[in-house]
């Protein structure tokens, strides 16, 4: 399948290339959220902030300082991870609900920062990046990031660190008592998760060539990340992949038919997942297969 993915762009048309690159992007975004939420149980309602920081960071560095793409993207992603840790320090000491909404506030504040400092960021007029139309490059960039992300998620699943995170998710107080430094672990997971979101943001910025604060920091992006991660199955390796592919495809179909009402359907999907499939689609498969 990986070989297929590697070879595919050489033969397919523009629409499909773009569509699959999009799917990779969303797998990456859902996956980055999954690193945090799936394994520690802390839901981040403002995760789009890191996507936005990655995007705008890359944009500003390339446009204002003339930096080439890769360093700009990496610096922005590291910045995103770093900010995550800073914001995480006070907010992760409290219960998950505080963290969730504090992050929403953070995302809004970041959007405001971009709008306010419009000398640098172009503010409400948007930011234009240097044009680069080799779409196959973006395909591979997203694919590469996703592979790296999957590798990291695999690492989370099987390492002592990852098991520590899962302990935090299931019973935080007990985890702390057994000697796991919960704050430290949570912050690391958060930082890594933000880093990946930042990378994807950077690639996205270069790919789209134009950034607009309302879109780049939109809460809708966070919503989709959350839904994809949970629909597929949070805290699993395949979850974000299945969830992202499934939802992106459904949205592509529905969006043409029911432009506005599809969000209602999405809302129902969320309610359905919470009430009936808390472990997501992956959980459903596991139940069926293990039950035999």
């Amino acid at each position, binding site marked *: 399948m990986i070989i297929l993915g590697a070879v595919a762009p050489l033969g397919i048309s523009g629409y499909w290339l773009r569509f699959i690159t999009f799917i990779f992007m969303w797998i990456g975004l859902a996956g980055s959220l999954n690193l945090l939420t799936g394994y520690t149980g802390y839901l981040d309602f403002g995760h789009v902030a890191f996507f936005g920081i990655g995007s705008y960071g890359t944009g500003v560095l390339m446009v204002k300082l003339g930096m080439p793409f890769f360093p700009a993207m990496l610096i922005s992603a590291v910045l995103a991870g770093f900010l995550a840790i800073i914001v995480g320090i006070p907010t992760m000491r409290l219960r998950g609900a505080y963290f969730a909404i504090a992050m929403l506030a953070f995302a809004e504040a970041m959007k405001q920062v971009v709008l306010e400092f419009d000398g640098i960021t172009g503010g409400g007029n948007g930011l234009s990046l240097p044009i680069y139309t080799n779409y196959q490059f973006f395909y591979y960039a997203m694919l590469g990031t996703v592979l790296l992300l999957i590798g990291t998620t695999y690492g989370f699943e099987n390492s002592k660190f990852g098991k520590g995170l899962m302990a935090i998710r299931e019973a935080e107080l007990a985890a702390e008592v057994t000697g796991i430094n919960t704050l430290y672990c949570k912050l690391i997971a958060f930082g890594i998760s933000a880093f990946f979101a930042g990378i994807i943001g950077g690639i996205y910025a270069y790919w789209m060539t134009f950034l607009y604060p309302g879109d780049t920091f939109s809460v809708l992006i966070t919503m989709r990340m*959350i839904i994809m991660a949970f629909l597929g199955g949070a805290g699993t390796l395949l979850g974000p992949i299945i969830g992202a592919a499934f939802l992106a495809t459904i949205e592509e179909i529905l969006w043409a038919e029911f432009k506005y009402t599809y969000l209602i359907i999405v809302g129902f999907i969320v309610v359905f997942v919470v009430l009936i499939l808390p472990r997501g689609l992956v959980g459903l498969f596991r139940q069926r297969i293990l039950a035999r």
Partner: protein
Amino acid sequence: MILQVLLDGVLIGGIYASCAVGFSLVFGVLRIINIVHGEFLMLGAFTTYWLYKIYGIDPFLSIPLSCSLLFIFGFLLQRYVINRIIDAPEIMSLLLTFGLSLIIANLALTAWKGDYRLVNPGYAGANFKIAFFTVPYVRLATFIFAMVALAGLYLFLQRTDIGRAIKATSQNKDGARLQGVRPSMIYAVTFGLGGAVTAIAGSLLSMSFSVFPAMVGDYLLFAFFIVVVGGMGHIPGTLAGGLILGILQSLSTNFIGAGMTYILIFLVLYVVLIVRPTGIFGKGLV
């Protein structure tokens, strides 16, 4: 000049406080973060709007109606949907209320379109002058109503049997059960109550601000700010938090610039979470 700004801040802060108190109550008793809270505000505002538009009912008079309607809605919503995950990990209630809010908000958007609407009866723009202050009638009236609603809720919780049962359930569910209180009923009533107060707030808001289905976004953040600063689950704290937010917003908009307001709010929130997560009075639940 600065006193006028402060006054504006106080007047609006009172309304903000009434927006947040339902959120605080629900969290204090059910221990869930209710994202649908924003939708209750929106629905309360729209109820007032439609009653005004179609029947010409004065907005203030529509309050009892919006209040009762949303009490029933909240009660049923909790009893039959939210109650299913009441014992599950917190993240589930976050997700569920999130999904519900998506459904409700987008149903409203589909039904009523996204246009901004305003409720403006004849006395809308009028104001009177005292000393060197200019006080708009509507702001003052909505402020008074908000105070009455807050005081009413507080007294209800302190003095009535149901109120005490609610407080008991929030403090010790099993103990309350032993005393003959049915938690599931209490949860439903509390949620309904929270919804009702929020509906009142929404109706009040509709008189000063535009009404449209997506209006919830800011108010949810404001509500969160208020309950963190005031102390989650503590009603007098909510009043203090609301006033602080109102004054902060008023000062920031007038002296620094509207854009910085969000950043300022976030910074204050951040600092409060580090320094005093239980809120000003230290009575918040953490």
